[in-house]
C-alpha cells in the first residue's frame, strides 16, 4: 500500500476512535448527571412532603382510599402514599430505581424514589417519581448528532487527508520516480533538486544526488580508463607487429624462429581483438554512437548469413531464417550488425556438427521479438546468469574465444533499449530472444 494511503487510513481510524470515545463518554456522563439531578430533586420533594406531614394531612389524604396519588397535569412527576402493614423503622431508607409507571392510563419511564416511614405508629409507603423521557430524548438527539458529525467529519478529513498527504508526499514520489526508478544510466542522471520544504526529503534528495555523483564518477573513470588503456596499448602492439613482420623477411631466419614469430603475431592479433572488443563496449556505453539509421533487420540478417557462410558450411549447420515480418528500426546499423553477428556466431560456435539454427520472429503487443535458437551445448542456469559478463566463456574447444561476444551484445542491446532474454537447456540448445521496444525504436511494419 502506498505511504499516502497508509497515512490517510491511519488518520481516519484515529479520528474515528477519538470521536467514538468522546460520544460514549458524553452519553454516559449525561445519563449519570441527569439521574443525579433528578434524584436530588426527588429527595427534596420527599423531605418537603415529610416536613409538612401531620396526622390531619395523612388522614385527609387517605380519607377516601387507602392509597393517595397525586400528579401534575403533564404527568411529569407524581406522588403515591399508602398505608402498609406496621413494621418498626428506625431510619428511613431511600431506594432509587428506574421503572415504568402507568398513571391515568399513560405509561412513562420514571426515576423513582421509594421509602417507608412510621408516623403515629403506622407505617406508610411513599413513592415520588419524575419522568426521564426528557433525558432519553436528549440522549437520542445527541446520539444522532454524534453520528452525523462522525460521518461528516470522517468524510471531510478523509478528503483533506488525501489531498494533504498527496501534497506532502509529492516530493518523495517525485524523488522515487525520477531519481530511482527511471535511472538506468548514471551518466544521464538528472541532478535537478526536487523542490520541497520537508527537510527529510531534502536530505534524501541530496543523499541520492551525492551517491549518483559518486557512481557516475566511478563509471566515467572506468570507461575513460578502458578507452585510454586501449589506445595506449594499440600503438605498442602496432610497433611489435610491424617489427615481427620485418623480421620475417630476414633470409637467415631459421624455420623454428619463423614459427615462433608467426605464433607471436597470432597472440598479438588476439590481444588486438580483446582490446578492440573492450573499446567497442566502452564506446557503446559512452553513447559515442548515433542511432539514427533506418535498419532493415532481415537485410542485416542476410548479410550476416553470407559473412558466416563458411563457418556454417564448415560445421554442416542448417540455418533456417523464417521471418514473418519485415521490420525497419531506427538504430545504429553497424552496431545492430555486430550484435546479431555475435549472437549468430555464438549459435554456430556452440552448435554441434550438423545441427541447425532457427531464426524466427513474432509480435508481442507493440514489441517485435526476434528469436535465434540453436541446437548446441546449451547452458545450465548458473551459466546463463554469468553469460553476459565480460570474459565469461563456456567450456569450449574453441581456443580463440575471449568471452566478450555476449558482453558486446549486452551493451549494444542496452544502448538500443532492446531486452535480451535467454533460455537454455543443457545439451539441447539455447534460445536468445531480442525484444525491440517500440518506444525506443519506432518500427515500421509492412507485411
Amino acid at each position, binding site marked *: 500500500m502506498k505511504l499516502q494511503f497508509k497515512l490517510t487510513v491511519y488518520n481516519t481510524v484515529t479520528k474515528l476512535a477519538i470521536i467514538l470515545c468522546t460520544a460514549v463518554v458524553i452519553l454516559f456522563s449525561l445519563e449519570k448527571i441527569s439521574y443525579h439531578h433528578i434524584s436530588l430533586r426527588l429527595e427534596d420533594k420527599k423531605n418537603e412532603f415529610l416536613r409538612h406531614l401531620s396526622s390531619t394531612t395523612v388522614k385527609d389524604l387517605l380519607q377516601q382510599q387507602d392509597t393517595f396519588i397525586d400528579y401534575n397535569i403533564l404527568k411529569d412527576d407524581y406522588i403515591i402514599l399508602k398505608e402498609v402493614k406496621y413494621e418498626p423503622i428506625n431510619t428511613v431508607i431511600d431506594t432509587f430505581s428506574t421503572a415504568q409507571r402507568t398513571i391515568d392510563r399513560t405509561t412513562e419511564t420514571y426515576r423513582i424514589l421509594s421509602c417507608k416511614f412510621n408516623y403515629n405508629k403506622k407505617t406508610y409507603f411513599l413513592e415520588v417519581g419524575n419522568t426521564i423521557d426528557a433525558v432519553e430524548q436528549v440522549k437520542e438527539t445527541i446520539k444522532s448528532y454524534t453520528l452525523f458529525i462522525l460521518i461528516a467529519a470522517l468524510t471531510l478529513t478523509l478528503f483533506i487527508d488525501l489531498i494533504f498527504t498527496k501534497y506532502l508526499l509529492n516530493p518523495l514520489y517525485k524523488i522515487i520516480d525520477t531519481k530511482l526508478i527511471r535511472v538506468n544510466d548514471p551518466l544521464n542522471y538528472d541532478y535537478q533538486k526536487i523542490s520541497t520544504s520537508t527537510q527529510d526529503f531534502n536530505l534524501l534528495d541530496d543523499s541520492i544526488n551525492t551517491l549518483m555523483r559518486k557512481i557516475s564518477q566511478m563509471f566515467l573513470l572506468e570507461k575513460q580508463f578502458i*578507452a585510454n588503456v*586501449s*589506445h595506449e596499448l*594499440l*600503438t605498442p*602492439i*602496432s*610497433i*611489435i*607487429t*610491424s*617489427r615481427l*613482420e*620485418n623480421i*620475417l*623477411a630476414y633470409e637467415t631466419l631459421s624455420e623454428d624462429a*619463423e*614459427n615462433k614469430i*608467426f605464433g607471436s*603475431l*597470432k597472440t*598479438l*592479433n588476439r590481444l*588486438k*581483438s580483446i582490446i*578492440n*572488443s573492450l*573499446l*567497442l563496449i566502452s*564506446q557503446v556505453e559512452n553513447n*559515442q*554512437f548515433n542511432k539514427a539509421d533506418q535498419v532493415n533487420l532481415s537485410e542485416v540478417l542476410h548479410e550476416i548469413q553470407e*559473412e558466416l557462410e*563458411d*563457418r556454417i*558450411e*564448415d560445421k554442416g549447420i542448417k540455418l533456417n531464417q523464417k521471418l514473418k515480418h519485415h521490420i525497419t528500426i531506427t538504430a545504429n546499423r553497424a552496431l545492430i550488425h*555486430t550484435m546479431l*553477428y*555475435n549472437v549468430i*556466431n555464438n549459435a554456430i*560456435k556452440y552448435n554441434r556438427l550438423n545441427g541447425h539454427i532457427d531464426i524466427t520472429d513474432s509480435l508481442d503487443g507493440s514489441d517485435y521479438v526476434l528469436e535465434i535458437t540453436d541446437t548446441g551445448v546449451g547452458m545450465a542456469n548458473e551459466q546463463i546468469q554469468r553469460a553476459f559478463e565480460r570474459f565469461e566463456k563456456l567450456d569450449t574447444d*574453441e*581456443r*580463440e*574465444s*575471449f568471452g*566478450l*561476444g555476449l558482453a*558486446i551484445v549486452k551493451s549494444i542491446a542496452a544502448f538500443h533499449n532492446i531486452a535480451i532474454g535467454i533460455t537454455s537447456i543443457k545439451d539441447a540448445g539455447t534460445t536468445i530472444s531480442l525484444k525491440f521496444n517500440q518506444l525506443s525504436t519506432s518500427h515500421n511494419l509492412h507485411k
Partner: protein
Amino acid sequence: MATFEGVTDFMNVLIVEDEKSLALEIDEYLSREGFTVEHARTCKTAEEKMFVNNYDFILLDLGLPDGDGFDLLKTLKKMSNREDAVIVLTARGEVDDRVRGLEEGADDYLPKPFSLNELLARMHAITRRKHKLESNEVNLKGFKINIQNRTVCHGEERINLTKKEFEIFNYLVLNKNRVISRTNLTEHVWGDVLEINSDSNFVDVHVKNLRKKLSQYAPIDWFETVRSIGYRINI
C-alpha cells in the same frame, strides 16, 4: 625488389608518425618493396615536406604532438594540383574517425595495429584506382591475373573463381615470396571482424578449392602450404 611489374618502383612515401620505432618499421618494409620513404614526426615538418615535394602516398597518423592529422589533411586538400594519396593510420579508435577521414578526402583508413602486408595491399589498390593502369595484368607462371576485372586466365581460358578465391589468390600474389598466415589472410578477406576464429579451417577450404581449380591448368608447385602457419607463393 619490385612488385607488380615495377609499378611501385620510385614511388615516394611520406610517413607522418610520432612513434619513431613504428615509422622505422614501416620505412624498412616499404623500402624493401621499392618505395622511397621519408619521415615527419610533427605537423610542422610534415607541412614543410608537403610544400616542397609531391608524394605518391602520405601515411598519416592522427594524434600528433603538435596538432591533429586532420588539419594536415585539410591543408593538403587546399593545395592545387596534388595527387597525393592519403591513408589515415590511427590508434585513436574514435567512432567517427573513419567516416571523417574519408569525408575529408583520405583514400583509405587503417586502424592500428595493422599488418604491413595489409598496408601494402591497400596501397596497391589505391595505385590501381588512381592511375587506372593500362597494364593491369600480372603474369604468374602462365596465369594472367586481371586486377581490374578480377579475373584469372590461363592462356585464353578463363578460370572460374569465386570472389573469395580471387581475393585470396590476389593477396598471396601481391605478397609473393612471403609467408602469409591464416590470421592475416582471414583478416584481409573477411575484414576485421571481432572475435573471428582464425584457427578454424574455413580459409583452408577456400584455398583448397582455389588450388584444385588452378592445378587443372598447370602444375602449381609454387603455391606452397607452410606447415601450420599459412601459405606462400614462390616465384
